[in-house]
């Protein structure tokens, strides 16, 4: 052990970060906590209600239904986008002029603002004037996302797949490019099939990027708001009303700030807990190795 002089003044250097995080995260969060335990009758008349709003939120059938739809949506997004994105990454050329071009073409949807994505798909899916809607009709499908919940779901999912699969692809592609060349050579010499190369050479090295892709896509899809709001408005009925939209309706539409705040916190905790579970499960093996 070296006898270095101790100087704790350097802790002050952390202060700017603490201040920034306070204003960006802690202060708004505490405001929500504040709302969640009070009944605000008017700006200067508040009553402390304890767990009341939480109990109410947890028993609300409308929230239950939205939660179920949300889980279904996120599960569908992950089940489609991860394999599809990975498959695209495997098909992309790794070098040459075509590599840069396909990357740029692929990244395009990621650059489109979310409300524009919703609008584009809203027009695209219209059975009267939209290209997609007209095409579906021409194929003999009785397609109308404004009337049929299944069509609405299919459209929202197709939109999300179009918008976000490129993210998974780019992450997986970066992971694939990092696989050292000798691994492919050795596999060729050993007579490995394409599937074995994927299973024994590529997949083990993609684990961390796929973990990141899964976390990002889960958190993002679980909090989706703008696109379905613009595309279907949550309809028909409540068929595509997910958690964020339900929450907004509660807070802004009905101005039930207390229940909305309590529900926000529950929502936040769900995202946090689920992400943590995913992350722990997927990185456990690596940590066991690293012992």
């Amino acid at each position: 052990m070296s006898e270095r002089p101790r100087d704790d003044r350097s802790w002050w250097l952390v202060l700017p970060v603490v201040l920034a995080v306070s204003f960006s995260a802690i202060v708004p969060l505490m405001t929500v906590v504040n709302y969640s335990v009070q009944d605000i009758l008017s700006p200067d008349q508040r009553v402390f209600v304890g767990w009341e709003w939480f109990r109410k939120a947890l028993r609300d059938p409308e929230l239950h239904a939205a939660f179920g739809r949300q889980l279904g949506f996120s599960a569908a997004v992950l089940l489609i986008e991860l394999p599809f994105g990975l498959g695209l990454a495997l098909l992309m050329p790794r070098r040459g002029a075509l590599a840069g071009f396909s990357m740029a073409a692929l990244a395009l949807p990621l650059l489109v603002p979310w409300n524009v994505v919703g609008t584009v798909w809203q027009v695209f899916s219209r059975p009267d004037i939209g290209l997609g809607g007209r095409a579906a009709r021409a194929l003999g499908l009785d397609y109308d996302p404004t009337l049929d919940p299944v069509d609405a779901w299919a459209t929202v999912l197709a939109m999300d797949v179009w918008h976000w699969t490129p993210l998974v692809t780019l992450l997986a592609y970066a992971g694939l490019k990092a696989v050292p060349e000798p691994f492919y050579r050795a596999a060729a010499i050993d007579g490995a099939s394409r599937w074995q190369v994927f299973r024994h050479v590529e997949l083990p090295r993609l684990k961390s990027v796929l973990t990141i892709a899964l976390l990002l896509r889960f958190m993002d899809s679980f909090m989706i708001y703008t696109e379905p709001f613009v595309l279907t408005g949550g309809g028909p009925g409540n068929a595509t009303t997910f958690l964020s939209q339900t929450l907004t309706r509660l807070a802004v539409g009905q101005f039930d700030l207390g229940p909305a705040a309590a529900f926000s916190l529950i929502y936040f905790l769900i995202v946090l807990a689920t992400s943590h579970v995913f992350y722990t499960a997927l990185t456990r093996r690596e940590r066991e190795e690293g012992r």
Partner: protein
Amino acid sequence: MAEIELRDLAHRYAGAADWALRPLDLTLADGEIHALLGPSGCGKTTLLNLVSGLLSPTRGAVRLGDADVTALGPRERGVAQVFQFPVVYETMTVRGNLEFPLRNRGVPAAVRRRRAEDVAARLDLDALLDRSTRGLPADVRQRIALGRGLVREDVAAVLLDEPLTAVDPAARGALRDSLRAAHRRIASTLVYVTHDQGEALAIADRVVVMDHGRVVQQGTPRELLTRPADVFVARFLGSPGMNLLPGGVEAGAVRLGGDGRRVVGVRPEDVRFAPADGAEGVAADVEEVVDEGHRRLVLARIGDRRVVAAVPDPEPAPSPGACRVTFDAARAVEFVDGEAAS
């Protein structure tokens, strides 16, 4: 188990301005250990990848035994190759790794098991057989990779590309011996790439010296040391390499001097010292004596030319200062314009 024959083989990488490997003809005899020796970037790996089929040549043909395999991929060629960078499949145990090339070729389970255990014993891996390959140190990984190269008995050739780079220097000698023993057993043609001449001379029956994409000389270690084909080989082989001085061999004696087109090469072991006041040899000046334990290296100067002499341990070495040196003319080699004069 086949002779490797390269006919007018050459390779230029896509987009590269120059040949990585210039047109060459080379035959590597069946069942022997051949070392490909040359400085980094001289084209050794390129040559090896052309033999295994990982690269297809820009021109020329590769023959294994009686078959022209130029158009075949690595899977069909029946060649095993081990790389400088240790490749291990972390999804499998050590045993799984060793059996992998056999499983892909439909070898029955009982045979796979026997061969994997056999090769593991040879490479000192038997204690690890059922262990996961995660987190193993680089030299163990490289032994596993070598095991995958040696486990197949049907191979036409085993190609090793600087396989001991990742291995601890202290363990290299033992591993080289295991390689030789394994080679005796499978009796296939073995090509061992290295830039280390000590390693090449220690392991190989025959050495192919390469430089700048060309084969400079092929021969046994003794032939290369005693009759180098040109000044590059003369300087590159031996530790240290030959002394090269302007001059030649005339009437059974080394004569220094001349225009520099003619150069005489003398191994450090063939330089002798005589008293400064004698008449034998040429006047020289000893600058430094380095004691290496089993021998002394004497760094001397003849005029403005440096000369290195190696004196084996019991013999007396001269002290720094004026002296005279003589050369063993019978073992000296004369070069004209860089090429050995016949």
